[in-house]
């Protein structure tokens, strides 16, 4: 049943791929065919596990799972606390499942850091395995998971379970965590942990009368100390504050941002500088990158972004999420540009009450008006297409439980989670639960953040730009313009070669290097 379900659900994707594979395998070798048959045999084992005639995408009924006992497998991002919360909260789901549907369920999980989790789950999905029944994935992976038909279209589950279709706070939720292809409206994911960017500041240092007096003496204006003031602050003014608190001789850096080559660390930290100044990274309608990314605006934004290194440790080019957390929580940095979703971990116990979280400072936009457009972070849940019926039911039950108000209360108020629904972000209890919820809400408003490409080639494209941009930060690439030129050409080549863009890369792109 589950196999049929899978094929029917994704006829266009899977059927085409299986046909393509068949053509390929016949041409390789007899040994290869034998091996593929063995693999096919293994993966078809899950068919036997199906039971019941009702649609498993509805979840369990009061009777069809009674007395059963099974294990739910989930994957999560290692070193990223928000994705570990479901494990801590799982006993509540066990009680919910037992009480409502009469089955026992255990949890197994696998985790890997951002850069490696996709590698961990993709081979299991390619082999048709249901090792991970439900997965926390990064939003950029949606296309790579949806196109081969590895995940269940969320719309099918929403159709059968309208109670799950909760009104989001803004369109950013759907465009980031749910929809693929971009703009199509077709949903594949369910919001798990929403995330936007912000800045964490040392409130105790801001409120120190000596600092206030010294700042006023030096800059001729008062030092902003309240959230409201910082919500409207311009980047140039903010940099003055960073410079004021930058006291490297005494072990205090003005700020900390991410420039690491790992995963998307540099990219996401840089994007707000480009987006807010009016830069674009591609044309999503034509998949054109060359001529869009390699613009003067983006180059100037990158110079500005990297220019902030003078307020940071000399090792700034290796700073990722973890390094920025360490710098801030060990009181070595006055401020830190960081994902708000890990706000709980930015405010170490000894910093309790001493931290102010704010949205990203504004830039002067192309029209001369203050503008901020941050990068979207966060992760959706996705459901494995290869789940047998029982595991599919449990996965849907899990989602039903996850979006219950009491579960969201526990996630947000006790486990450092963030709300994403209209109701959740208008809930005063949530908004006042932690200092980073208000700036998160601000950055989640329409037009204030944007996610980047969701195409299956994202990993290749990301690797190219991380290498070039980190190279510029570290000094192996001579200018921001060169780094962007290289990136744009190579990414255009990737999209052109994959057939996703009709726009060819400039001549000589293949032999282009960063040297």
């Amino acid at each position, binding site marked *: 049943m589950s196999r049929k379900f899978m094929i029917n659900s994704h006829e*266009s*994707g899977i059927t*085409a*791929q*299986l*046909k*393509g*594979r068949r*053509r*390929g395998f016949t*041409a*390789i*070798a007899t*040994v*290869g065919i034998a*091996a593929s048959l063995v693999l096919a045999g293994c993966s078809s084992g899950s068919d036997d596990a199906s039971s019941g005639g009702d649609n498993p995408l509805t979840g369990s009924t009061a009777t069809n799972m009674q007395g059963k006992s099974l294990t739910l497998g989930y994957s999560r991002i290692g070193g990223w606390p928000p994705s570990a919360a479901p494990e801590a909260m799982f006993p509540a789901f066990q009680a919910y499942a037992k009480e409502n549907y009469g089955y026992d369920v255990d949890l197994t999980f696998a985790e890997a850091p951002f*850069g490696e989790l*996709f*590698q961990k789950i*993709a081979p299991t999905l*390619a082999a048709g395995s249901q090792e991970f029944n439900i997965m926390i994935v990064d939003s950029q992976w949606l*296309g*790579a998971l949806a*196109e*081969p*038909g590895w995940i269940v279209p969320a719309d099918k589950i929403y159709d059968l379970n309208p109670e799950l279709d909760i009104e989001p706070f803004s369109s950013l939720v759907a465009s980031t965590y749910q929809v693929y292809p971009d703009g199509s409206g077709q949903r594949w994911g369910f919001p798990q942990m929403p995330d936007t960017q912000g800045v964490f500041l040392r409130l105790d240092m801001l409120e120190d009368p000596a600092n206030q007096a010294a700042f006023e003496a030096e800059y001729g204006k008062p030092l902003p100390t309240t959230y409201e003031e910082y919500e409207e602050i311009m980047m140039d003014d903010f940099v003055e504050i960073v410079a004021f608190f930058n006291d490297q001789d005494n072990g205090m850096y003005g700020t900390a941002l991410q420039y690491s*080559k*790992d995963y998307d660390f540099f990219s996401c930290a840089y994007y707000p500088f480009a987006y807010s100044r009016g830069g674009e990274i591609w044309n999503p309608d034509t998949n054109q990158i060359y001529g869009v990314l390699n613009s003067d605006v983006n180059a100037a934004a990158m110079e500005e972004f990297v220019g902030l290194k003078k307020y940071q*440790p*000399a*090792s*700034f*080019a*290796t700073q990722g999420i973890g*390094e920025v957390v*360490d710098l801030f929580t060990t009181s*070595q940095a006055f401020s830190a540009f960081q994902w708000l979703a890990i706000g709980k971990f930015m405010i170490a116990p000894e910093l309790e009450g001493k931290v102010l979280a704010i949205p990203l400072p504004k830039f002067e936009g192309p029209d001369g008006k203050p503008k901020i457009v941050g990068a979207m972070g966060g992760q959706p849940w996705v459901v494995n297409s290869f789940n047998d019926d029982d595991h599919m039911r449990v996965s849907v039950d899990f989602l039903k439980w996850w979006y219950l108000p009491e579960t969201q209360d526990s996630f947000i108020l006790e486990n450092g989670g963030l709300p994403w629904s209209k109701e959740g972000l208008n809930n005063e209890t949530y908004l006042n639960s932690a200092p980073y919820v208000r700036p998160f809400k601000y950055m989640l408003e329409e037009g204030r953040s944007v996610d980047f490409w969701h195409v*299956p*080639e994202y*990993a*290749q494209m990301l*690797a190219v730009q991380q*290498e*070039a941009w*980190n*190279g*510029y*930060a*570290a*000094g*192996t*690439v001579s200018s921001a313009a060169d780094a962007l030129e290289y990136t744009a050409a190579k990414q255009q080549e990737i999209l052109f070669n*994959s*057939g996703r863009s009709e726009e060819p890369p400039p001549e000589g792109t*293949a*032999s*282009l*290097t*960063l*040297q």
Partner: protein
Amino acid sequence: MTEAVIKSKQPELIQGKTGKSAPRKAKSRFSSNTLWSGGLLVPVLLFFILMNVVPTIWMLGLSFYDYTLTSAKGMEFIGFDNYTRLLNDGPIQLAISRTFLFMVLAVILQTLLGALIGFLFWRADRMPGRRLALTLLFTPMVLAPLSSGLFWRLLLDPVFGLINYFISSLGFEPVNFLTNPDWAFTTVLLVDTWMWTPFMALMTLAALGSVPKAELEAAQVDNLSMWQRLIHVIIPYAKFIIVLGILLRTIDVFKTMDLVYLMTNGGPGDRTELIAVGLYRLAFQSFNLGYSSALAVLLLFIAIALTSIYLFVLNLRARKELKDQS
């Protein structure tokens, strides 16, 4: 009595070996032996076929396809396109040349230092703490490269690292070992040398152990200088094992991936991007299986060429031993 028994049994034994029934018995023994030994080989052969031959054939086949695991496009036969693309791929060519440079420098450094350490410990049985020193010396070699990479990354960190703490406490500026383009490649090279010099020291010790004592004593009696002993006595005997060590290291360094990936992730920029790291990215991050298979085939040929040299040297020794015996 014993002699008589032996003598009386000898004809039977001789008959047993040379009589008419002998060929049949020998044949049956031969066939059962062959069957038995062949049977013992089956698991190994099966393992070899399943784990080596099939994946290699599969990889070879994939290298002729445009195939990305995460794309719905499916597989498309493109002949030698992946290979022609490789020939024009600037970053790949750069990574290969960087890998060769890394390989040459690493092998030279490790051989020289390994030889030096080997000589220090050779015939130093009375050295106090020799065993402990040898155990400590060989420790880096037995550590997982992933652990070593992480360990060094933390040690070398300019903000939190122990090494920069000492550098700062001496009044110097912290050194960005892993992010400074002028330092990163050298740092990774030195860490690889730290890790694998013990292997070359071990090979040197084994090589020196193969020098006959009599020859060394004769050289001493003849009052040969240390240099003459090295050239005329030690090197002729030790060279085979040392060359084997060099070749094994050459093949191994060519595949260096985990240490670099953990320490620098190929950075800053692409400054430490070795070809194995590039292959890993193509195959397991981008899942571009067709193109990465073509690159893997290319690297396989390079590895085969290096292995051929290794086998040639092995045979060289066998040939020399045969010649000496004759």
